[in-house]
């Protein structure tokens, strides 16, 4: 782990991991889509509409995972002030926001034929919308403050305050009477989904998770390079000022 915490070492490791992760992600998506469309049976109540689950559920899981990653990295920024922690948090925000957007839209498209409406202001849907707005707020904050260190600390505080929304999302279906169904995969008594549908869901979830990791590695690499470019541009300006003097 200490070697990973060095940006130069991280760039080297990321460069080696990215091609393998890309190949594995493509293979898993191919297998997952095949299982989702050609192997998984239609649900006895929902029919083929249940196939939306194979993109909706992984996207929702990763929306939460992305925010938990940002919250954990924020602790690293505030407590240890490690630059890679801030880089990890900043790079995860657009990815988490995209997965939250996918979860919201696919849930809405699933809700219309099953519930008869695209949207209801119930606890699960509303708390997911709050998560999306939190992601947008974090992205805006990072964009608004030019100095990366100050931006990172401000975003870390906002991210940790917003982390209270994560348990609310998870337990909203238990705490309140919602239109959204309760947990059927990650629950104490084990999954209630039939294995013929659980298997494609697990494969798609793995594919989406690898995609998240892959995009996060590339985004982190781009962010490290952006900070190097910024530092070098400042050096360039200083050198030009010296020449002028």
């Amino acid at each position: 782990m200490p070697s990973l915490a060095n940006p130069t070492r991280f760039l080297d490791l990321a460069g080696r991991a990215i091609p393998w992760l890309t190949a594995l992600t493509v293979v898993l998506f191919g297998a997952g889509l095949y299982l989702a469309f050609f192997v998984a049976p239609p649900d006895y109540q929902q029919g083929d509409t249940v196939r939306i689950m194979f993109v909706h559920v992984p996207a929702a899981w990763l929306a939460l995972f992305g925010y938990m990653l940002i919250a954990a990295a924020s602790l690293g920024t505030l407590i240890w002030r490690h630059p890679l922690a801030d880089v990890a948090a900043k790079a995860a925000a657009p990815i988490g926001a995209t997965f939250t957007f996918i979860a919201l839209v696919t849930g809405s498209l699933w809700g219309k034929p099953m519930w008869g409406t695209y949207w209801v202001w119930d606890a699960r849907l509303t708390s997911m919308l709050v998560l999306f707005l939190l992601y947008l707020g974090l992205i805006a904050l990072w964009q608004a403050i030019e100095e990366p260190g100050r931006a990172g600390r401000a975003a870390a505080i906002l991210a940790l305050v917003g982390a209270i929304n994560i348990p609310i999302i998870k337990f909203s279906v238990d705490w309140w009477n919602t239109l959204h169904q309760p947990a059927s995969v990650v629950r104490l008594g084990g999954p209630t989904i039939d294995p013929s549908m659980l298997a494609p869901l697990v494969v798609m979830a793995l594919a989406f998770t690898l995609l998240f990791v892959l995009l996060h590695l590339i985004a982190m690499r781009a962010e490290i390079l952006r900070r190097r470019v910024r530092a070098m541009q400042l050096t360039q300006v200083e050198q030009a000022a010296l020449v002028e003097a």
Partner: protein
Amino acid sequence: MQGLGPHAIFILAAYGVTFAAVTGLALAILADDRKQRLLLADLERKGIRRRSAGAAKTAKPARRPRP
């Protein structure tokens, strides 16, 4: 469409939105990565070095031309 039942449009729209969002995100991240690599390469070509890369490696500023 027939194979996916009466709600095929919702299923296809869900997968379509997912594909478009993921592709857009991936392209944006890859474009940003490429842009930063090009900027870094350009600065290195000009002899600019980060302070942490070592002061010795820092290119000397050009002398002021004599009048």
